């Protein structure tokens, strides 16, 4: 099936992918346990923490989000929660006011001007040493903040990301995302060991307030402010860590179209931010982020574009051949006989199988790390949903970047 230039390109892609996976696995098996994470939680410095909950029409999930924050295992006098209503037009504000009697919670309302302005508004209202954000569609595990505080015992640590898990996946699309998030959680842990975390996600990433005092507040950053702030921190040598046991459960898009819209915003924002921060690439001073993680993100983007074209061409050819066959002799059932001779044993096939096995291994490590239960259906959905849908948002994002068109949050 392969020959000439396409085969050489595919072999190159497999080499790059395999190199990255080997690098990841080596880091994982090094088991460089952060000594500080072994500190007993009882002997920790408990910082004064502020969690900002920016809300815009989140009446369905806000109550659960605030209840999970109030249930955090953390001294009440050291935790404040700021709800910033960003001009909601539904009952969000009245639901927030149900919690007004809680001493830890303060509620603010402002005109709608985007998530990053709501978070910035909250940052300016607090005197806490640590500032975090929790999107109103996410819910925290009671121990999540203690886990994050454990990582902050390292005085160099300026921000800590949690372990994000998909909350009760119901649809096929959400089941696919569950597997993706478990792999993402594993990669975050590994990137944390490499000091190369490239994004501080909205759900429960916590920062030293000093970060915002030194580097400025959140920017709109093409609606991917959590990616931009992480790149800005790396640019200024600020360390970002990961708390792999700080579980945060987040609600994910439940339809293909909503997933498309979300990913389009992410990919486009990430591409534009990467262009803005291109000076981070291939600079030793930015460590593994500049030498590996960011270049691989770009390379994988173009690999995905190439694979999508290649797959469309091959699938079209296959369908064409099948139509020809059907036109010639009708629909016939294939003779099923097993002979090892007919197993494809080309170098390309063997390496592709190996890549697939390593991917399955990483998924199983991720599932074990998040203490979630993976099912075969979720695994199947992962390998069906992304190959089919991802090319649409990847191509559209690239085209929109070239055309200078910006996509909105919703």
């Amino acid at each position, binding site marked *: *099936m392969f*020959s000439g230039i396409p085969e050489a390109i595919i072999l190159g892609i497999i*080499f790059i992918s*395999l*190199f990255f996976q*080997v*690098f990841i696995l*080596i*880091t994982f098996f090094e088991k460089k346990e952060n000594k500080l994470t072994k500190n007993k939680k009882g002997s920790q410095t408990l910082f004064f923490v502020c969690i900002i909950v920016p809300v815009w029409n989140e009446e369905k999930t806000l109550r659960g989000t605030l209840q999970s924050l109030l249930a955090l295992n953390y001294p009440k006098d050291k935790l404040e929660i700021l709800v910033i209503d960003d001009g909601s037009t539904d009952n969000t504000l009245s639901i927030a006011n149900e919690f007004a009697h809680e001493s830890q919670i303060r509620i603010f309302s402002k005109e709608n001007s985007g998530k990053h302005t709501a978070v910035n508004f909250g940052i300016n209202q607090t005197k806490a040493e640590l500032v975090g954000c929790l999107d109103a569609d996410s819910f925290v595990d009671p121990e999540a903040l203690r886990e994050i505080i454990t990582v902050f015992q390292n005085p160099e640590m300026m921000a800590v990301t949690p372990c994000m898990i998909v909350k009760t996946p119901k649809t096929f699309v959400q089941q696919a995302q569950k597997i993706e998030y478990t792999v993402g959680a594993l990669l975050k842990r590994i990137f944390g060991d490499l000091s190369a975390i490239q994004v501080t996600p909205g759900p429960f990433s916590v920062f030293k307030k000093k970060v915002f005092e030194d580097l400025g507040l959140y920017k709109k950053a093409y609606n991917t402010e959590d990616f931009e702030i992480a790149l800005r921190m790396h640019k200024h040598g600020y360390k970002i860590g990961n708390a792999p046991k700080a579980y945060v459960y987040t609600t994910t898009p439940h339809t293909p179209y909503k997933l498309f819209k979300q990913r389009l915003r992410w990919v486009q924002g990430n591409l534009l931010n990467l262009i803005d921060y291109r000076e981070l690439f291939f600079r*030793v001073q930015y*460590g*593994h982020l500049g*030498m*590996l993680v960011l270049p691989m993100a770009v390379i994988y983007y173009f690999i995905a574009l190439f694979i999508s074209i290649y797959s469309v061409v091959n699938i079209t050819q296959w369908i064409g*051949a099948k139509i*020809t*066959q*059907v*036109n*010639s*002799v*009708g*629909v*016939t*059932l294939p003779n099923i006989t097993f002979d090892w*001779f*007919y197993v*494809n*044993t*080309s*170098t390309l*096939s*063997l*390496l592709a199988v*190996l890549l697939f096995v390593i991917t399955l291994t990483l998924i199983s490590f991720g599932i074990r790390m998040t203490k979630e239960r993976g099912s075969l259906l979720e695994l199947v959905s992962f390998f069906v949903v992304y190959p089919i849908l991802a090319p649409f948002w990847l191509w559209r994002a690239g085209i929109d970047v070239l055309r200078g068109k910006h996509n909105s949050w919703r």
Partner: protein
Amino acid sequence: MQFSKYIISFIITGSIFGAAFLLSEYLSDKKAENITSIEQRISLDILSSETQFDLLREVKCSDVDNSILSGEIGTLGDKLTRLESERGIADSETLYLKQYYSLLQIKDYLLSKRLSETCQKKTVFLIYLYANKANCPACENQGYVLTEVRKNYPDLRVYSFDTELDLSAIKTLLSVYKVDGTLPALIIQGKPYYGFKSLENLNDLLPQSLRATSTSATTTKNKLSI
């Protein structure tokens, strides 16, 4: 920053690539060996058949059963197609195996024909001449039809020849049957037919004696209508 980890990862990745390449080569060689061994078996079968055939002057036709004709020709063709798709059409070893296969087919055809004439058997022969897709767009369709015909008529002796193979015996075959170059071409009982022939067309071209042996009644059980 640890550059050593990059170097180690690169070496491991390179080693995996090397191992995969060697394993693939090993398995490919095993497949070529498998084809060679089948070709040797067929060659031996043909030699044995020829010897038997020479002895026919001294024995009766009834003493010769159908087993003298090799049944592995079809399997060999399928395996060669597979090997060709993995190694590419320009691979020299595959080309050699294909040439050898073509010669074996010709020998089998000549021997079967002689046996059929001498013993007055009603064996039906179909020679299929094809070329690659660029030079013969309809050959792909014809191939599907012939695969189906083979299934329907197990007694039909089908021989396929790639006309682009550099083999003088094939060129001779083309000139013997005066094939004018329009492909695909089918030679049924010595008579050439040009252009694509559908399943129905082909059924009509086959002798009545063979059609009576059709297994299509059972085959259609596995066939879905469209």
